[in-house]
C-alpha cells in the first residue's frame, strides 16, 4: 500500500505577545491509501490545527508533512493551493459553500480550477449521487443544512482526491440528517478509494473509521484501531 500522508515530528507554536504558545508537539503518524482515520480529543486539544497542517492549509513550526509524496514544508501558499486542488478534498462543519454560486456551480469549482472540460456533466452526476440533482440551481441559502452538507460532499469528491479531510462533518446537523450524511461520506469514500481523515468529537462516528488518533494538550495520547478505543472507553466506564 502506498503512503498518502506522512507526519514527522510535527509541532505548531503561536506567538502571543511575548509568549510562545505550543499547540501541537511531537506528532508522528502515517496513513496509507484507502485508510480511514479519526482524530479525536477535547476542545482546544489541537485537532483542527493538526487537520489544517495535514491538509496544507497552514505551515508547521517544525517537523514535516508529506502529502502524496510532496513535502509541503517549503512550498509557498500558492504551491500548496495547487496540491490541495490536485489531491485533497474537504468537508467542513459549517459546509463552507460559496453563497453566490448555485449547488451545481459549487461542485464544479474544483474541476474548473483544474481547467477540466465538460465539468457540468461530472458535477451533475455527483449531485445525483448525493440526491440533489433536481436542486442543482438552488443557492446555498435555499437549501437545508443537510442538503448543504451533501453539496459539500459532492464538491469534496469532485476533483477525485487521494485524501479527504472532514472537520466535524455532522457537527451542525440533527441526528437523523447527520446519520444520512455520515452514510454518504463513507459510501462515497469507499467507492472512490480515498484516504479519509476525520476530525470529530463524536466517538460513535470515530468508531466507523479504521484508526483513531487521540490528542490531548497538543500531544498524541493514543493511536489505535477503533475497537481498542471503544474497549478503553468501556473499561473506563
Amino acid at each position: 500500500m502506498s503512503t498518502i500522508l506522512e507526519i514527522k515530528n510535527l509541532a505548531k507554536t503561536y506567538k502571543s505577545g511575548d509568549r510562545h504558545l505550543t499547540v501541537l508537539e511531537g506528532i508522528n503518524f502515517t496513513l496509507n491509501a484507502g485508510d480511514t482515520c479519526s482524530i479525536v480529543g477535547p476542545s482546544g486539544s489541537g485537532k483542527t490545527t493538526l487537520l489544517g497542517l495535514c491538509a496544507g492549509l497552514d505551515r508547521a513550526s517544525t517537523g514535516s508533512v508529506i502529502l502524496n509524496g510532496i513535502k509541503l514544508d517549503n512550498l509557498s501558499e500558492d504551491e500548496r493551493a495547487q496540491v490541495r486542488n490536485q489531491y485533497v478534498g474537504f468537508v467542513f462543519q459549517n459546509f463552507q459553500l460559496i453563497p453566490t454560486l448555485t449547488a451545481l456551480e459549487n461542485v464544479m469549482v474544483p474541476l474548473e480550477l483544474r481547467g477540466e472540460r465538460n465539468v457540468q456533466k461530472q458535477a451533475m452526476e455527483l449531485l445525483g449521487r448525493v440526491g440533489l440533482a433536481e436542486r442543482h440551481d438552488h443557492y446555498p441559502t435555499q437549501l437545508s443544512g443537510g442538503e448543504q452538507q451533501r453539496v459539500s460532499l459532492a464538491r469534496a469528491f469532485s476533483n477525485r482526491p487521494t485524501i479527504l479531510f472532514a472537520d466535524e462533518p455532522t457537527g451542525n446537523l440533527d441526528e437523523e440528517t447527520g446519520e444520512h450524511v455520515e452514510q454518504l461520506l463513507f459510501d462515497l469514500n469507499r467507492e472512490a478509494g480515498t484516504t479519509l481523515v476525520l476530525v470529530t468529537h463524536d466517538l460513535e462516528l470515530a468508531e466507523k473509521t479504521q484508526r483513531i488518533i487521540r490528542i490531548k494538550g497538543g500531544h498524541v495520547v493514543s493511536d489505535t484501531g477503533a475497537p481498542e478505543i471503544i474497549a478503553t472507553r468501556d473499561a473506563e466506564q
Partner: protein
Amino acid sequence: MPDIKIKPEDKPKLRLRWLLKMAWRDTRRNRGKLLLFLSSIVLGIAALVAINSFRESLHDAIDSKARTLIGADMVIGMNKEPDSLALALVDSVKNLGVRSDENRLLSMVYFKRTDDTRLVQVRALEGSFPYFGSIETEPKEASRTFRQGRRALVDHNLMLQYNAQPGDSIRVGEMSFEIAGALHKIPGQSALTATVAPAVYIPRQYLPETGLMQRGSRVSYYYYYSLPPTVNPDTLGKRLDPRLEEYGMFYDTVETRKKSMGRAYDDLARFLGLVGFVALLLGCVGVASAVHVYIREKLATIGILRCLGMSGKQAFLIYLFQVLGMGLLGGLAGAVLGSIVQLVLPELFKSFLPVDVEASFSWLAALQGILLGGVVSVLFALLPLLSIRQVSPLITLRASVEHLTSQKDPLRWGVYALLFLFILLFSRWQLGTWWQALAFAGGVVAAFAILAVLAVGLTWVVRRFFPSHWGYVWRQGLANLYRPNNQTLLLTVSIGLGTALIGTLYLVQRTLLSDVAIAGSANQPNLVLFDIQNSQKEEVLQITKQDSLPVLQIAPIVSVRLDKVNQLTGADVRKDTTLGIPPWLFTREYRITYRSKLINGEETAAGEWKGKYDGIQALIPISLEDRYAERIKVKLGDTLVFNVQGAPVSTRVAHLRTVEWNRVQSNFLVVFPEGVLEEAPQFHVLMTRSKDDAQAARFQRRIVDRFPNISAIGLDLILQTLDEVVSQISFVIQFMALFSIATGLLVLIGSVNVSKFQRVQESVLLRTLGASRRQIFSITSLEYLLLGALAAATGLIISIGAAWALSVYSFKVDFAPVLWPLAVIFVLVTLLTVIVGLLNSRGILVRPPLEVLRREA
C-alpha cells in the same frame, strides 16, 4: 510511494475566461453594494465629461464661427490718438481692402424719458462693419438705419433698465440722438463685456459735435479691415507688428483672436474640470472604502476558494475584474449623465461666450469618461484588493484567525506611488502645466495626509486617555472610534475632504466679493467725476458745494509716456530681451498726478517724499508705486525720462509707495511733486460721497447738464456691475461644486452604510443583553457626532489654508475669512453625518434583535 513533485510546468494557468465568469457569478448577491460604490464615481465622471464635451463644442463653435469673432479680417487698435506716422500705417493697410473706423470712449448718456444719466461705452462707428456676422438689433433694420442720421443703438439691457423705446431721445455729450433700436449682439462682444460696459453706438461723423473728444479724454481708435483673399491677414499682421508696436498699436486677426479666446476659455474649462476632478477624487475615496468593506465581507468566500486550490493571483483577479467592470459601468453612467448635463452648459456659460455654442455629443469625452471610471476604480480599489492575496485558507477552519497581513505588503508603496502619479498626470492634463499639477496633487495629498493623521491621532488619543469613569453610553460611543473595524479613518477623510472643498469654494468667492465690498465702506467716496477740464474745475467744485457734497479728493491728471529707463529706450529693450523689461511700458500712455503729500491708502515703502520741486536739482524727484518699480526693474536713485505732451522731462526715483488699489480713489503709478506739471495739459478727477441715490442722481444730472463731457460714476454702479460679474462666475463654479457636494453626500451615505454591517452585530448583541433603544440611539449618535464634528472642523481648517493660498497667490487679493458661514457649514455637515448615520441604523433600532440578526446573516 510515487515521487510526485510540484514542477514549474504544473503551475496552474490563470484561466482568464473562467476568472471573468467567476467574477460575474460572484456579483450575484452583491450587486446592490457594488452599485453603491459605483454611484460615488458617477457624478465626478459626469462633471468631467460635461466640461470636456462642452470644451470641444466651444472649440468647434469658435472654429466654425471664427470670422464673426472680430467681424473683420483684421483689426488694428490703439488707446491714444494716432499721430501722422500711425495714421499713414493704417491708411496703407486700407489700400489693400475696405476699412471701418471706430472710436470708443466712456461717457455719460442722458435718457430723456426717465431723466436718468448713466455711464456707458460710446462707440462711434463709420463704415460697413461688421464684414462677417451681423449686428443683432430690435427692430432688425436698426443695425442699418442707425448709420443714416443722428440715431443711436443702445444696449438692450440699458433700454430695459431705463424703460427706453426706439424713437426716444438719448443725449450723448452735447448732442441728442434718436434711439434706432436695442442692441442685442455685435461681433466681438460677449454678454459679460456688455455687462461691464454697456455700449451705445452712434455714427462716427457726429462724434466731434458731441464735445466728448476733450484733451485728456481716454479715446480708443479701432480700424476694421476687410481684405481681399490674396492678402493673408496673419502674414500682414506679422509683417506690420514691429511698427505697430513702435507706435503703441496692436492688431488682431481671426487666428490670433481664436487662439487667445481658445486659451481663455480653456483656462476656464480647466479650472472647472479641476472642480470636477476633485468630485471624482472624493468619489474615489468612496470606492476605496466600499471595496475595503466589500472585500472584508468576501473573506470567507476567498478562504474557501483558496482552500479549494485557487491561487492568490486568481482570487485577486476575480475581484479586480469586478471592480473594473463596476468602474466601467460607473464611467458609462457618468458619461451618459455628463452628456446630458453638457446640454445645459451653453445656457449656463451664455454670458461668457463670444459665439453661440451648440452642445453636441462628444464621443471622445464620453470614451474618456468610461475609461476614467475603470482606471480610477481599479487604482483606488488596489489597496484593499491587494489584501486578497494575503487571505489564508485557514479562515475556513477558524473564523477568528488573523487573515490579513497586508499592512506589511511592500506592494502598497507601489500603489501609493501609482495613485500620486495618476493624480499628477491627470492634473497636468487638466491644468496644462507641471508646476500647477504638482501644486494641486501636492495639495490633495497634503489634505488626505492631514485628515488621515488626524483620524489616527484621534483614535490614539481616545484610547490613550479613555475616560473610564464616564457613563456607559459615552464610553461605548467613544470606544467605537478605535475598536476593530472602526470607520474613523474613512469617514474623517471623506467628510473632511468634502467639507474642505465646499469651504474653499465658498471662502474664495466671499474673498473676491469682499475685496469689492471693502471699497463701499463708510467714509469712502461713492461718486467719481472725471474728465474735468481746467476751465471747468472751479465751477464743478462750486456745484459740488452747492449740492452739499464733500470734496474728498480732487486730483489733476496728466497724460505722459515713458521714453527712457536708466537711459534705455523702448528700442533698446526690444533688442535685449535679457533685460527683463517689458517693451509695452514704452508704448502705453500713463495717467500721472502731482501733489505734495501722500494720501490715505498710500504708505512709504522706501525713500523720502518731499512733495515740492525746488527747481535746483537737475532731475525731478518722483514717487513710484513699489510693484510698478519692480516690474520696470528700477530702484531708488534710478532715472526715468517721461514725454509730457512732446517735452522730455528727466526724473529720479526718490520715493517708493505701497498703494491700496481696492480703495475707490484715484491711485497712480507715478506721482510728481508740485511745481513741475502745473502748466501741462491736464484734466481733473473729483471724488465725493453722496448721502443717498437721489442726491447722487440729482448731482450727476446737474453736472452732465452743464458739462456733457464730464463723466460721473457711482460706486453703487461699480459694485452692482462687479457683483453681477462675480455672481455669474460664482454661479458656474457653484454649479460644478454641486457635483462635489453631491458626491460627498453619496460617499458619506456609502461610508456610513458600509459600516452598518459592522455596527449591526454589536448593536444587536447590546440589545440582546438588554440595552434600550435610547441607549443604542445615543451611542450611535455620539459616534457619528464626534466623527462628523472632527472631520468637518478639520476640513474647514484646511479650506481656510487653501482659500488663503488661492486668494494670495492666484487671485492676488487680501484674504478675507468670514467665520459665521463656516460655522453654518460645520453645523450642517456634522448634523448631516449624524442623520445619515442614524438613518442607516434605524433598522436596528426599530426591529427585534433576532429579526435583524437573521436579516443581516
